[in-house]
């Protein structure tokens, strides 16, 4: 079964290959995404996050999900030396950068609890896959070309792990390098992280992308994470362990 719905302003796709999957199963998983949106949307005045930001909910009154997400945000802020920060300049707390990966991971866990083995969940280009594809092979994930959305530039095989890409897809101005005599650019336009699950991949991809040129080295230092970075000049760099996720 396969279905895509627009939730949280992005396409959310569920694919479940197991024969016993039914529409009711997919509906239940989509309902969870909608519930997460209702809880965390900064656009919905009555969302829990908006009520927290207006001071209407004391810390003790927060839902378990909110508490979990805010704790993850704080942990990631500390791990990334402040590069991951959900506090906007106006003081509003906006954990959207964490919620997507969290919601995808929860959806994958929900599918597993339903007894499914061969599936993937894709929300806005962040992915958690399980089991095998329709040909009985490992799921293959393409990294989109930041300069041409119709193309992919790399294939990775996450084998039960999660994949998340951060980026702006905005081409920065080229910079003249006096040492090489050529134009290049310092701007990173896309950073893909593969981690033990999509939540880990997503939160570290977000944090590392904010670090610019240093982000790929941050991923390199983190156990269990691999990364593929593309700069505005069309050059890619990868962590030393990425090879284990590449096709032979």
């Amino acid at each position, binding site marked *: 079964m396969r279905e895509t719905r627009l939730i949280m302003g992005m396409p959310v796709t569920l694919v479940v290959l197991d024969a016993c999957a039914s529409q009711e199963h997919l509906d239940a998983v989509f309902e969870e995404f909608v519930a997460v949106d209702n809880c965390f949307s900064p656009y919905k005045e009555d969302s829990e996050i908006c009520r927290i930001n207006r001071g209407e909910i004391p810390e003790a009154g927060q839902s378990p999900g909110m508490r979990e997400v805010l704790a993850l945000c704080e942990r990631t802020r500390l791990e990334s030396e402040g590069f991951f920060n959900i506090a906007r300049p106006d003081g509003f707390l906006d954990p959207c950068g964490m919620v997507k990966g969290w919601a995808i991971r929860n959806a994958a866990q929900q599918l597993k609890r339903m007894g499914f083995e061969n599936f993937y969940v894709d929300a806005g280009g962040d992915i958690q896959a399980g089991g095998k594809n329709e040909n009985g092979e490992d799921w293959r994930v393409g990294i989109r070309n930041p300069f041409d959305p119709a193309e992919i530039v790399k294939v990775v095989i996450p084998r039960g792990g999660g994949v998340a890409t951060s980026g702006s897809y905005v081409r920065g101005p080229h910079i003249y390098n006096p040492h090489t005599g050529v134009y290049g650019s310092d701007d990173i336009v896309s950073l893909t992280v593969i981690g033990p699950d999509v939540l880990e991949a997503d939160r570290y991809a977000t944090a590392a992308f904010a670090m610019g040129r240093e982000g790929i080295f941050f991923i390199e230092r983190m156990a269990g994470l691999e990364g593929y970075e593309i700069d505005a000049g*069309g050059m890619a760099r990868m962590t030393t362990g990425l090879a284990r996720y590449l096709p032979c």
Partner: protein
Amino acid sequence: MLTNSRHNGVFLARLLASAALAPVFVSTAQAAGVVLPPGMHLMDGDFVSDPQTFEWGTLQIKLTIHDGAITAAEALQMPSHRRRSVELSEMAKPILLSEAVQSQKAQVNIVSSATLTSVAFQNAMVSALTKAVAH
């Protein structure tokens, strides 16, 4: 006269959040995809959003309205990602393999990509459209 612009902004935000914006690029096509509710009319002219600050910088857009419809969207400010560098410890950096990106013809099941500017883009759209609403 718009008496409650904040309320209107929230309304537009909901509208945009539900609209089919799968924003990878800020484009006129995206902006033109916004469906206005019946009874809401836009004034002709150029409308500049308030700057929207998000994780990696500032986004500001200009919408051009002609005959009540969005005919152009332009990014006046986009995040540039030129950040202060991380203060690394003294340890030497590993040498990472690099390659020129090349289009792959291989078959894949799923595609990973960034959608990050989408929220900031929606906020900028709300801001510009709020200014364009005819009263």
